[in-house]
């Protein structure tokens, strides 16, 4: 693989892997807490966030979009919690009410703001734009050692990398109380772990992962990576640490395989155009989960 690969495919691949791993980390805890769909809810409210960010700043650059999406995600989380607690509504229904209403508001604002440029970004937010994250100055493997070329790497790469690092550090730092609170909340509370705060923190970290990833790779991957790799790992092992490592590995492999298949398989099959890389990564993660559902050594429930 040569110069063309470095220029066109290296950065999208790295970004996809980082995004997948970033989402899989909190996903492991979310599926054990039966909160898997929080990623789904957060991804849907990214739209109103982007639109509001655009309306306020009048610009379609990254930061207003990210800030808007982040704010919307936090508002959604607060709304879901409020509906759950105040109305004593089950979490699924509370999420359904909150994110669909916010999504509707987003669509309304979008139509009202009436801009084609923002319209573009809606598809971008949903489907991602992996293929466009090209490293123009990456003329070959040697460019990896060339400071001036490295300076021209897409900014998404650094954003995604820093969030990935934050996520990994947070996972290690809060590992023990998180595992305890997820396994046996009453006991965890009895030794003084602030279980409610911890649960809120987990959701906030999930929101950070989702918002950081949607910009680079789109919401579909976000939802898929929150759930599929951890769910796959869950069917392969009975040890939490191993599960998280496997889920990260599965996420990374799905990202690579999905990206490659999307880019090259259509050409092999005689089509002219490649297909959506984000969609393909989600699809591959589904295949991985399907295999685990059929053959995973720990797929069965051990206890009723």
């Amino acid at each position, binding site marked *: 693989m040569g110069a063309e690969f470095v220029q066109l495919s290296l950065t999208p691949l790295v970004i996809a892997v980082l995004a997948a791993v970033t989402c899989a980390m909190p996903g492991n805890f979310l599926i*054990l807490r039966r909160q898997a769909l929080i990623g789904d809810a957060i991804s849907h409210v990214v739209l109103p966030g982007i639109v509001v960010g655009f309306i306020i700043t009048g610009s379609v650059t990254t930061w207003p979009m990210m800030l808007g999406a982040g704010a919307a995600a936090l508002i959604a989380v607060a709304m879901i919690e409020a509906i759950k607690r105040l109305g004593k509504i089950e979490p699924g229904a509370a999420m359904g009410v909150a994110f669909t209403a916010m999504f509707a508001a987003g669509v309304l604002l979008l139509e009202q703001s009436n801009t084609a440029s923002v319209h573009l970004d809606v598809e971008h937010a949903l489907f991602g734009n992996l293929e466009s994250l090209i490293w123009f100055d990456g003329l070959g493997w040697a460019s990896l050692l060339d400071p001036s070329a490295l300076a021209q790497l897409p900014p998404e790469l650094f954003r995604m990398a820093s969030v990935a690092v934050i996520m990994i550090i947070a996972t*290690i*730092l*809060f*590992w*023990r*109380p998180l*595992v*305890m609170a*997820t*396994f*046996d909340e*009453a*006991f*965890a*509370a*009895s*030794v*003084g*772990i602030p279980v409610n705060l911890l649960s809120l923190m987990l959701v906030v970290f999930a929101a950070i992962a989702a918002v950081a990833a949607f910009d680079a790779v789109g919401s579909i991957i976000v939802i898929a990576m929150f759930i599929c790799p951890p769910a796959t790992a*869950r069917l392969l*092992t*009975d*040890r*939490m640490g*191993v*599960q998280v490592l496997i889920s990260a590995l599965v996420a990374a492999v799905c990202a690579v395989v999905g990206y490659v298949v999307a880019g090259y398989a259509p050409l092999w099959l005689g089509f002219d155009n490649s297909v959506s890389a984000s969609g393909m990564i989600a699809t591959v993660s589904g295949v991985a989960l399907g295999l685990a559902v059929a053959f995973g050594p720990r797929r069965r*429930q*051990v*206890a009723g």
Partner: protein
Amino acid sequence: MFRSMENPFAKPILVASEGEPVAPDPAIDEAALTVRGLTVAYGGSPVIFSIDMTAPQGTMTAIVGPNGAGKSTLLKGVLGLVPALSGKAAVFGAPLAAARHRIAYVPQRAGIDWDFPVRVADVVAMGLYRELGLLGRVSGQRRAKIVSALERVGMAAFADRQIGQLSGGQQQRVFLARALAQDADLILLDEPFAGVDAATEKAIVNVLRELRDAGKTVVVVHHDLTTVAEYFDRVFVINTRKIAEGSVAEAFTADALHAAYGGRLASAQLSELRAPAA
């Protein structure tokens, strides 16, 4: 008629949850657990109402009462796991927040996801959380603590098993081992004998007795009236309100049980229970 009619508040308020020093009240300082006026309500009515309770150090108390009488809620209220409408609890004379390190709690087995990816040793290690903190390593001496806790409940051979691969009784023993690892002075257990085999029940009782004989205080939510007199030295009878409290001979009486269980406990059964109590 009223002892303190002049000023019923001359006695200082028990400030356990307000962080101020508790006024010197020898009864409260000496007891392992003191509960005063604790009321907890779910929905529209109190589950437990104005509960006063004292568990003296070095005793083993059973909390008994019919289903829905508030036994488990009482423990949760003491631990602050459910919000109290009124009332306070003190542990060794200190507010809960200052005494957590002296308490071990064994929750009900129901409601745990037994498919959870943890091994037996991991569960017991959770009992060391307060000394390990966020990043402390389980090594050497601490590993020995875990092993010895497992040995005491006869589960050392299962340390590497996933928790769901154990029987109900074995799972309960592991939970007890976790509490032992906490090295606490007050151990609160919620229905530890529910759904466990006879051998496990015996093993758990033996461990609890050892704890009590070593000066620890044990409080158990218990549903089997036939074993109260055999296992425990104190009893607390509850049905939303406190019915009776004291040594088994004092408080585990036909009157108290009748008041708690009403007509549902046939009198024949009651007299049968009285025999071992006397």
